[in-house]
């Protein structure tokens, strides 16, 4: 009996550590588990680099080999730039940083501060009329320190039936004006991007988490957020959890 109070003391620190591998192990053999498929062997090397990277990191540690951003191929010489992009470039000087064309889709890259201006032009200009916000999402590129996130707006016009993507590059702290004033449907989409990535939208009427609980710590879809989650015990502070994993892995090496 006298041992009992001590016993919980002793296993207490390893307890969370012991709990870790349980969610971790299904994650690692997951890709290998479907190993009957021919593409599985290649999945194996892809998965392991993710684990040490996530564990070693304080914060911004790239998951795989440093990817500094999506390939944004410039339009080929023979591609005809749609009229609405030309008129946008004419109407708002400095509104378009770059253009990209890939797989029949045009992407306009816009500075974060100008997004409202560009958005309003694209929505109202008679040759653009992008009245429908199909999608609003973000991509995380942790190696890029100055502007970590790509926020992507997929626009569609129900009048002219054409599409365009608008892309904005922002960092964690950079304020990004909310486009809910232009397309009310952006409300929940921006809430989701805030919830999952922590992009700092300003002027949003109702910026709360949407899919995760209100009191959740961290932003789950960031690349440095572990797939299996921070675990219940250490949900308060994910960094503690990362440290714990690191010590455990060092112990395993020894």
């Amino acid at each position: 009996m006298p041992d009992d109070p001590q016993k919980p003391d002793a296993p207490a620190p390893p307890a969370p550590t012991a709990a870790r591998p349980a969610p971790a192990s299904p994650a690692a053999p997951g890709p290998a588990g479907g190993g009957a498929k021919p593409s599985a062997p290649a999945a194996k090397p892809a998965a392991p680099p993710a684990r040490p990277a996530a564990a070693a990191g304080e914060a911004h540690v790239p998951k795989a080999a440093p990817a500094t951003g999506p390939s944004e191929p410039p339009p080929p010489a023979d591609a005809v730039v749609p009229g609405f992009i030309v008129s946008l470039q004419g109407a708002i000087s400095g509104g378009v940083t770059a253009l990209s064309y890939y797989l029949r889709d045009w992407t306009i890259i816009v500075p974060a501060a100008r997004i409202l201006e560009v958005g309003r032009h694209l929505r109202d200009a008679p040759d653009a009329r992008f009245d429908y916000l199909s999608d609003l999402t973000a991509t995380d590129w942790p190696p890029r320190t100055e502007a970590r996130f790509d926020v992507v707006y997929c626009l569609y016009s129900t009048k002219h039936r054409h599409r365009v993507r608008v892309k904005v590059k922002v960092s964690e702290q950079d304020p990004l004006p909310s486009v809910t004033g232009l397309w009310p449907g952006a409300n929940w989409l921006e809430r989701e991007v805030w919830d999952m990535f922590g992009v700092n939208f300003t002027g949003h009427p109702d910026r709360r988490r949407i899919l995760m609980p209100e009191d959740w710590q961290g932003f789950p879809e960031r690349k440095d957020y572990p797939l299996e989650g921070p675990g219940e015990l250490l949900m308060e502070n994910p960094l503690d959890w990362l440290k714990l994993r690191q010590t455990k892995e060092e112990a395993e090496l020894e």
Partner: protein
Amino acid sequence: MEAQTIRGAMFDTDELVINMGPQHPSTHGVLRVVLRLDGEKVVDCDVVIGYLHRGIEKLSENRNWTQIILLTDRMDYVAAATSNVGYCETVEKLMQLEVPRRARYVRTILCELQRIASHCLWVGTHAMDIGAMTVFLYAFRERELILDLFEEFCGARLTYNSMRIGGLPLDIPPGWDKKVLEFCTIMDSKVDEYETLLTHNRIWLERTKGIGVISGEEATGLGLCGPALRGSGVTRDVRKDEPYAAYDEMEFDVPIGSDGDTYDRYLVRMEEFRQSLRIIRQAAQGIPEGPIVGKVPRLIKPAAGETYHAIESPKGELGFFIVSDGKSTNPYRFRVRPPSFCNLQGLRRLVRGHLVADVVALIGSIDIVLGEVDR
């Protein structure tokens, strides 16, 4: 003057906040709606979601390209094949793969069968929410026939995993196309049967006409999609505007409503039953001979780049935004644009000023699947 003050004092009412869900049969899953009421009128509401969040996007970024097909089943589980097609087509676009015509025809049939199955479930539950029990039993009887067809095609009845990147997993079983055509003949009369039960039903009209009216312009701005948008008179159908599978070879009409109320959204979906049957007939009669899978590399690894591709799921525009870094065998970013999520956003606008009982009708009217809303 004095009488008015007294009256004001006597009938001074407080707003009442009540909670609906997340465990409530009429919310079609785990949806929670916090209603602010003035008497029985809804002043405002807050829609709370996320109870079924499984992190499919994050999970997909850690699975290889083939394994993700299985995860897409778990989004809109009443129309799983549609999500399969949407995902596979996006990857095919990213890899610039050519899909054989036979596969595209079968995909069209599967998508439309799913639309009918999903609408069957919708009409049944929607009517049951409003108080008509019979339609539910009838609609599920026909949905069963579709599930049988799917079982014969891929062995599963709910989560099909019925598609592969570049084509189909298996060819259709012999005689399957005949059975599909037989089903069309049965279904034709059944749609009329549902309509006799509801379309001119006095109670149905009272409960749906003028409920949740939204103009086309407002619906577009709110990002509503599918029948919810078409009910407001906006001609927007991905099948027509940006054809995929074999829709460019099919003849069909896009029904639209005029008033943008619950009744119009109902009529749009009823007409979609018929148009779907029309498409299935054309596709099943014209399935071309040929291979079922295109030239797919053994290792699926799209070149670096990003793309957005949308299809018309029974609920509306189902889009996939996928980024490949060209190095690993999993997508760098996997994003789903879920139609139910975008439609559900409109609920707050729709219920304002209506009665509590109409909230139930409106949730049914926008046709949500929580698996897709929360992912």
